[in-house]
């Protein structure tokens, strides 16, 4: 019994911590914000530390419903780090936006993290669904957290309606898979697919339908084209720290979920889902790049950038090998750092009276008013574009290398040529920052913490980041190996 507890330690710590902090929040009200914020980061840290034990190597629990393996541990580290940053940056933002911050914000993120943890540890379609819903429910509330703000409320509603639709589609797929394989366990589904392929040469039609619907549901969560419509609106409307959660932790968790489902449950159906992933990947890259060009709001632009980047990560999944899956999670890990950095910079965009500004035009001439911030922003943009020597290049490198490894060099050539379109709008931001005449300057930075986090992200993405390659390769390699 104790084994179970240790394997589930991160989730248990988050749940108990979350409930206790919820009580604290209820008792102390808004006076307790700072305490709850710090304690929730501490809870996340504790959950992260617990990954050192059997939580990362223990194996299956509850008859395969929950898997504690290296893959789950790798993803959880990324999720917890991103969530912690999103909690830390929130109080100042909400104070500026609405006067106060409710202490429920960090608690909701903790619950969302429990859901994300279950998603990446799922060994069964139902665990997967419960995790996904727990994560989503918290996210719907978070999106509309500034409830008096019209845009935030609209973002929450849109996200909820479309998210519910996607959940429905996915649940339908789950029921189809259950109907045509007789189980909801990933291993059982894989075995049924393999059996069907062995006897008839391909999965049965019902299985393929199930596969398509399940993928559609997950692709919605990672906002891949053609399930991306909600992304720009929600990213723009949600409070910036919440958008940061969506773009980093949540995206990483959903991508990890997709990887796990594709590799473990649908692995034998590789030929079937590969076509879907290739199409979705290329469509995401193109749409993410082209649609971003015309944006004037930085958060919308970053939303399209996330669509674009998800497309590249999916190319690694299309390779279908352990190397490809390792490339996907490495890409997402690097992507989290780039996105956290970009959104931290967005948080710095405030006019002289401290109100948040989101237009790209307001960045004009930032290099003269705030050279440090401008340099960091340029690092993030070039890195998102995948230009060496910045570390964002490494993610793309791994993905394309994995594609070459399975002989898909045409796809790799098309994908990398399309990355040039994406480079254009990142360049546009750098141009605004460095080449244009200065716009009215932003308010000076009032937080050492945010400055420090931006600097840390910029250093990680600088060429110094390349020194992390061996460690990243080791961790992501072990994580991917756990799926096979």
């Amino acid at each position, binding site marked *: 019994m104790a084994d179970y507890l240790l394997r589930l330690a991160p989730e248990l710590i988050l749940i108990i911590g979350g409930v206790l902090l919820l009580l604290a929040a209820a008792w102390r009200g808004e006076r307790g914000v700072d305490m709850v914020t710090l304690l929730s980061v501490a809870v996340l840290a504790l959950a992260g530390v617990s990954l050192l034990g059997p939580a990362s190597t223990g194996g299956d629990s509850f008859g395969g419903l929950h898997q504690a393996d290296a893959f789950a541990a790798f993803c959880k580290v990324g999720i917890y780090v991103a969530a912690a940053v999103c909690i830390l940056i929130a109080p100042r933002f909400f104070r500026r936006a609405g006067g106060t911050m409710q202490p429920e914000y960090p608690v909701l993120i903790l619950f969302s993290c429990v859901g994300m943890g279950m998603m990446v540890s799922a060994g069964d379609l139902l665990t997967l669904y419960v995790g996904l819903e727990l994560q989503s429910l918290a996210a719907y509330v978070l999106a509309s957290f500034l409830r008096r703000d019209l845009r935030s409320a609209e973002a929450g509603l849109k996200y909820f309606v479309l998210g519910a639709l996607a959940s429905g589609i996915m649940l339908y797929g789950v029921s189809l898979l259950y109907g045509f394989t007789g189980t909801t366990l990933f291993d059982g589904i894989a075995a049924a697919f393999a059996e069907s392929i062995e006897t008839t040469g391909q999965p049965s039609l019902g299985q393929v339908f199930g596969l398509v619907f399940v993928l559609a549901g997950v692709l919605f969560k990672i906002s891949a084209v053609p399930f991306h419509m909600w992304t720009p609106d929600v990213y723009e409307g949600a409070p910036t720290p919440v958008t940061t959660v969506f773009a980093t932790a949540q995206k990483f968790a959903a991508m990890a979920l997709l990887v796990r489902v594709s590799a473990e449950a649908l692995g034998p159906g590789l030929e079937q889902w590969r076509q879907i992933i290739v199409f979705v990947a290329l469509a995401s890259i193109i749409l993410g790049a082209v649609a971003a060009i015309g944006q004037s709001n930085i958060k919308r632009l970053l939303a399209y950038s996330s669509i674009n980047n998800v497309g590249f990560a999916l190319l690694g999944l299309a390779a279908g090998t352990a190397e490809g899956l390792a490339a996907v999670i490495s890409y997402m890990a690097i992507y989290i750092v780039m996105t956290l950095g970009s959104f931290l910079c967005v948080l710095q965009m405030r006019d002289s009276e401290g109100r948040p500004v989101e237009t790209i035009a307001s960045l004009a001439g930032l290099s003269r008013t705030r050279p440090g911030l401008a340099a960091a922003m340029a690092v993030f943009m070039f890195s998102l574009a995948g230009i060496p020597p910045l570390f964002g290049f490494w993610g793309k490198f791994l993905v394309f290398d994995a594609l*070459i490894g399975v002989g898909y060099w045409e796809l790799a050539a098309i994908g990398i040529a399309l990355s040039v379109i994406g480079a254009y709008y990142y360049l546009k931001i750098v141009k605004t920052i460095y080449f244009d005449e200065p716009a009215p300057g932003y308010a000076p930075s009032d937080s050492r913490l945010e400055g420090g986090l931006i600097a840390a992200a910029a250093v990680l993405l600088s060429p110094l980041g390349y020194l992390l390659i061996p460690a990243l390769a080791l961790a992501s390699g072990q994580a991917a190996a756990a799926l096979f």
Partner: protein
Amino acid sequence: MNQLGFPILSVMLLVPLVAAVACVYSAAANARRIALGATLIDLLLGIVLWATFDQAGQAERWQFVEYQPLFGRFAWALGIDGIALMLIMLSVFLMPICIGASWRAIERRVPEYMALFLLVEVLMIGTFAAQDLFLFYIFFEAGLIPMYLIIGIWGGTRRIYASYKFFLYTLLGSVLMLIAMLWMARYAGTTSIPALMETDFPVEAQTWLWIAFFASFAVKVPMWPVHTWLPDAHVEAPTAGSVILAGVLLKLGGYGFIRFSLPMFPEASQQLIWVILALSMVAVVYTSLVALVQADMKKLIAYSSVAHMAIVMVGLFAFNQQGLEGAMIVMLSHGLVSGALFLCVGVIYDRLHTREIARYGGLASVMPRYAILFLLFTMATIGLPGTSGFVGEFLSLMGVYQVNSFATLICTTGIILGAAYSLYLYRRVVFGVADKPDVLKMEDLSRREIALLAPIAAVVLWLGIYPESFIAPMRADVAALTQRIDRARPVGDAQVAAAAPGAVQEQVGGPQDAHGAEAH
């Protein structure tokens, strides 16, 4: 380690890098001094490098080798041969001159400017010294970022258009090369460039790989018809930016062909030689004619660069010692001469703030010293014997004559056209009557400007009169390269053979005949 006992190449990379960081945190005056100091230290290190480089061909082919497997998938592997040495020398020689040229001309955001230039130097040296495929790619691509910022921040009126064009054009070319590199690293199981140079790739794969590398290097060289970024980038870049673009960055393309395309894909190079020859022939004639009608001095020199680089290309694909050595010398010579011409334009631009040729005239009477130096560089760009241009162009064309006499004929017209546009430019700017009042007020070269141009003039003459100093370090490496690609050497079209008068001579021959032809 190496002959010197310390990792000199890493130090040459570290000095400008540290100086770049220091510049960012300094005031304008200090930033200038730091940048000049760092580039001069690198020049000194470069001279040490050249002096200790064993050019007798006795030692290893790759010298000053460093190897640290820092990055897991690829390594911090540096090392140079004679070809890389000469191009590194060109870079470190031009760098202090660029800093000097920007001393007064750049007044806005000096610390950032100096820092970016020092970064460019780091990346150029890194590209030439890299011995790991992916390390090379990172250095090669990274150069885009500082050049984008230099053109975009300190450029002229159309700087933003030019900076985008420069960045996206070259990026599109290079990304395909990355895919080819990934494939090669997998096929050969190594990322070491010397090892890959010895790898025989399957002939059918070579064609694709060659095209991918061609996409990248052809844009960098630049070859017609992907040269259009160059005039825009040159015209809008600040003077020193143009010097570095023409002087060194264009050489990255030529270097890429020497280092990758030829030794790694000899068969594909031979199959696709017609692409190189055809594009180069068009480039020589077309861009020379375009240069002839330019009203903007920098544009004229930019187009002339395209024509000169086309001669480099035909020399490289001559598959023989003369052609390759000639191509290298044209690269060095063009780096110096076009750099110097851009500086000459910069000198009068600083005084009159226009690059329009028609606004000048009669400078010979008001700026005699300037007129003399400008004349020397004009003659060098034409390729007058005694200047560097002659040695390189003559060798290149002689090399390619053994492969294709028609291409040689067309490319040689480039020299005549080159004389036409260069002399025409010189006549309009320097000769004639000095009747414009503001031209009459122009001052002759200052001491600083002479200090910038005189060293280049000296090296141009040195290269023209005694090219052996420059050819000697490369000789063994070029010989190794010709030996490597000998199996794919194209059959020359000039099969000279003794025969009885009137006898019908069969013109088809194998490589053996080509060897015979070389003797003539």
